[in-house]
């Protein structure tokens, strides 16, 4: 297989270990006087956006940042719980850059680029250093050093964390760096602004059209380069762990202007979320993967067992992950754990009123911790109550905020009863196709963090999203953007009365007018929920040819109905959340169709993409490396018309193998 001539990944030549350092030392630079004249637009203020904006402003570029929330600190990175990986080997357990690289490639089921992933592993340590320097309060040991914990898909402890609020603390660190640049006037911050389109001049991205969400006015903004740091598209499923506002609009607009979309069907279904409680459900809440360090997952051995969890004796419990995967046990990667939960529930062993849940039980480890504590406290002949009480204190320190959240939502106390959990959509590995420089197929348009497709292949390992977002923003883009901008030093700032800006704004205005003119009968949420149902049933945890084919035609019909029957209340020139949602859902519908088409062409199972037709006798994902070791990059040709381009994945350092966690 040869890569499409339209896709040049620009992976530097040479040995894997030296690609990045050599590239970094030889990439073109922009001198400080020129940097002052170069303007960069950053859309999105999560880990990738804030870290990129702060770092580029520190270097001297003129930066403008946009976010749709009321403050950059609200971006959804804030909700990440468990941690951030780094190959520091502080635990002396044999970790290394190579091992992190290897685990990430393997965890991604051999569908990511070696060059990118190795770079990610190389800079991972710098991220921790940078965050600590900013005052991020990571968890520490009594000796004052940083603490680590384990995450799925690895056998070392390389995850740095701040209780169950790691994303919050990292984002607040990046936000503080960004705030500093805002205070110095190096960054112009535009909160409550949503990007509506990319402006193209002579084949290059030269700015954006944004809508001021308070006044409703459309604005034109010029940039020598545009960085999309706009996160993932999990909300295409309506119910996901994403924030309500997470959307694909910026990426989708870029796609329609010529940016190829990479691997859209790769979706991560997270195994440990709080199950759906009713039709009113607006979002799903994650319970961090870190809980799988100390929680054991089980279902009853008997079908339709209606006894309470604590009434089911030990020998009648099926710890199915420990049974199927003894080497990794409860710490198998997310895709494996999710499918195993689905398998048990589908087979009739689920728990709770809906029977679509499994138990995550902390009793055994609470007791284990309690025993350690009684020894520490020199308590001889402790009672069972003493042990449990002390054990609960340890569990509380590690996961207190998660337990509180669970109790708040379900009304049940997880210190007393096992949690009920079920998989839910959490992250999207797919995204805009980018080269090694993080540039999309549109010159001057970059995608960072979850918005790009790059480093996680077909499945992301836990605690690697924070790592990638910050790697892209702090340590990759500041170097790689020089390659493009060094050629742009002669380009003067383009006035926004240029016809390309006028035309782009007019197109956005026309779409807004169109949405209001329909005056249909159904709310935006109605369409969003129906789209989500189609996607979850037919393009969710398990997919097949028949279902995907049906989904494509159902989504096409839904799109037609949307544009005939949606009701958007209020006016254009005011704060109007319904209008915001209408724009986003219209784009989700188009994306949903592409996701199904991508899932349909990929006649194999890999990572989060599980095609029922392609599985081993044991029910594991069965890859087809001869025919599918490629990145699917889709070009937009028109409504329901997408052309597939392939980027061959070459594995020169890692031997392709069936993933084995048993």
């Amino acid at each position, binding site marked *: 297989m040869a890569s499409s001539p339209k896709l040049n990944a620009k992976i530097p030549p040479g040995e894997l270990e030296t690609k990045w350092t050599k590239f970094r030392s030889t990439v073109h630079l922009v001198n400080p006087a020129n940097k002052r004249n170069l303007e960069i637009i950053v859309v999105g203020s999560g880990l990738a956006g804030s870290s990129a904006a702060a770092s580029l402003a520190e270097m001297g570029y003129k930066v403008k940042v946009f976010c749709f929330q009321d403050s950059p600190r609200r971006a959804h990175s804030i909700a990440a719980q468990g941690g951030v990986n780094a190959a520091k080997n502080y635990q002396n357990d044999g970790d290394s850059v190579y091992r992190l690289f290897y685990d990430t490639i393997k965890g991604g089921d051999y569908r990511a680029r070696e060059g990118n992933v190795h770079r990610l592993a190389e800079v991972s340590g710098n991220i921790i250093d940078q965050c600590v320097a900013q005052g991020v309060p990571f968890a520490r040991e009594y000796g004052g050093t940083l603490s680590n914990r384990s995450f799925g898909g690895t056998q070392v402890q390389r995850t740095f964390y701040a209780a169950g609020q790691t994303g919050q603390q990292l984002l607040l660190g990046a936000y503080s760096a960004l705030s500093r640049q805002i205070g110095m006037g190096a960054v112009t911050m535009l909160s409550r602004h949503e990007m509506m389109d990319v402006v193209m001049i002579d084949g290059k991205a030269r700015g954006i059209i944004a809508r001021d969400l308070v006044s409703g006015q459309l604005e034109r903004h010029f940039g020598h380069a545009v960085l999309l740091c706009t996160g993932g598209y999990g909300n295409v499923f309506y119910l996901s762990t994403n924030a309500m506002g997470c959307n694909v609009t910026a990426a989708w607009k870029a796609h329609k202007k010529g940016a190829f979309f990479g691997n859209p069907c790769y979706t991560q279904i997270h195994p440990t979320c709080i199950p759906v409680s009713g039709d009113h459900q607006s979002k799903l809440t994650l319970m961090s993967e870190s809980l799988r360090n100390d929680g054991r997952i089980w279902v009853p051995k008997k079908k339709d067992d209606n006894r309470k969890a604590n009434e089911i004796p030990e020998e009648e419990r099926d710890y199915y992950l420990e049974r199927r995967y003894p080497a990794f046990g409860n710490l198998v990667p997310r895709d494996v754990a999710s499918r195993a939960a689905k398998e048990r529930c589908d087979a009739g062993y689920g728990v709770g009123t809906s029977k679509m849940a499994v138990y995550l039980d902390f009793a055994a480890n609470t007791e284990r911790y309690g025993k350690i504590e009684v020894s520490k406290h020199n308590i001889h002949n402790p009672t069972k109550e003493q042990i449990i009480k002390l054990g609960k204190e340890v569990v509380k320190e590690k996961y207190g905020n998660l337990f509180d959240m669970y109790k708040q939502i379900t009304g049940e106390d997880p210190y007393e009863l096992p949690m009920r959990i079920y998989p839910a959509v959490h992250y999207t590995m797919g995204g805009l196709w980018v080269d090694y420089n993080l540039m999309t197929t549109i010159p001057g348009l970059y995608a960072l963090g979850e918005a790009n497709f790059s480093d996680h292949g077909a499945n992301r390992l836990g605690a690697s999203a924070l790592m990638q977002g910050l790697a892209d923003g702090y340590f990759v883009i500041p170097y790689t953007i020089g390659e493009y901008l060094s050629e742009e030093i002669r380009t003067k700032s383009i006035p926004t009365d240029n016809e390309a800006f006028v035309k782009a704004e007019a197109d956005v205005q026309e779409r807004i007018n169109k949405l209001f003119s329909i005056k249909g009968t159904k709310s935006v949420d109605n369409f969003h929920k129906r789209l989500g149902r189609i996607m979850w049933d037919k393009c969710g945890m398990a997919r097949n040819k028949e279902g995907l084919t049906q989904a494509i035609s159902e989504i096409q019909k839904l799109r037609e109905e949307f544009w005939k029957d949606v*009701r958007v209340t209020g006016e254009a020139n005011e704060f109007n959340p319904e209008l915001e949602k209408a724009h986003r859902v219209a784009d989700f519908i188009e994306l949903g169709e592409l996701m199904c088409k991508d899932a349909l062409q990929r006649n194999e199972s890999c990572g989060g993409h599980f095609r029922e037709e392609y599985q081993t006798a044991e029910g594991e994902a069965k890859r087809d490396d001869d025919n599918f070791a490629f990145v699917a990059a889709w070009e937009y040709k028109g409504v329901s018309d997408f052309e597939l381009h392939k980027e061959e994945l070459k594995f020169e350092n890692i031997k392709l193998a069936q993933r084995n966690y048993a």
Partner: protein
Amino acid sequence: MSTTSNMNLTLKVWKQKNKDTKGKFETYNAKGISPDMSFLEMFDVVNEGLISDGKEPIAFDHDCREGICGMCSMYINGRPHGPKQGVTTCQLHMRSFKDGDTIVVEPWRSAAFPVIKDLAVDRSSFDRIMAAGGFVSVNTGNAKDANNILIPKPEADEAFEAAACIGCGACVAACKNSSAMLFVSAKVSQLALLPQGKIEAQQRVWDMVHQMDEEGFGNCTNTGACEAECPKSISLENIARMNREYLISTAISKK
């Protein structure tokens, strides 16, 4: 899972077109509300009904709906984030109410938080306070190996507790003086407690407090309503620490 049956409620909600117009309370009926719903999901149901009746839905801020982003901001029955301790509006569930209740919902009230529409307010004053000094002045790439800075666990834990602030503004809404001292002191404390932040501690507290005053927030009179209403239980001790830091910075600036 709750087995309690569904509820019918009366809502009195503040409606205001924009910051330049006057607002007033309007009454809505919320019918068939499940106790398992979150407070915001109850608003989704009401809004869905309004849209299908051709009326305008109620505007409110919200995003993560898991209590961490700090975007949701409703003043419910006279309390920011409602009747429960230690939760945001999005994590307040309807099992905290009973059938037949009347619930009054207002936006955050503060001169420094002008109303944008209905229940949504402008909290950009918080961002400007952060831009004035809520950071450690370290550029990307300057950092040394993370374990070169050893921090005793108690101090690290205390800094973490202060850093848990989500910047929602409940402290301001709870305060009769609209003081932002709890918010500002949480950031001042977090960074003053850590060796990385200690270096600029005096300048930071000076800059942040001055910006806070400029934004029109009121003074602290030690009533403690902020701590009681904070969804992340940020401690009043932070205010005491900030006052100490501020005193030192004033003394230094007089020299």
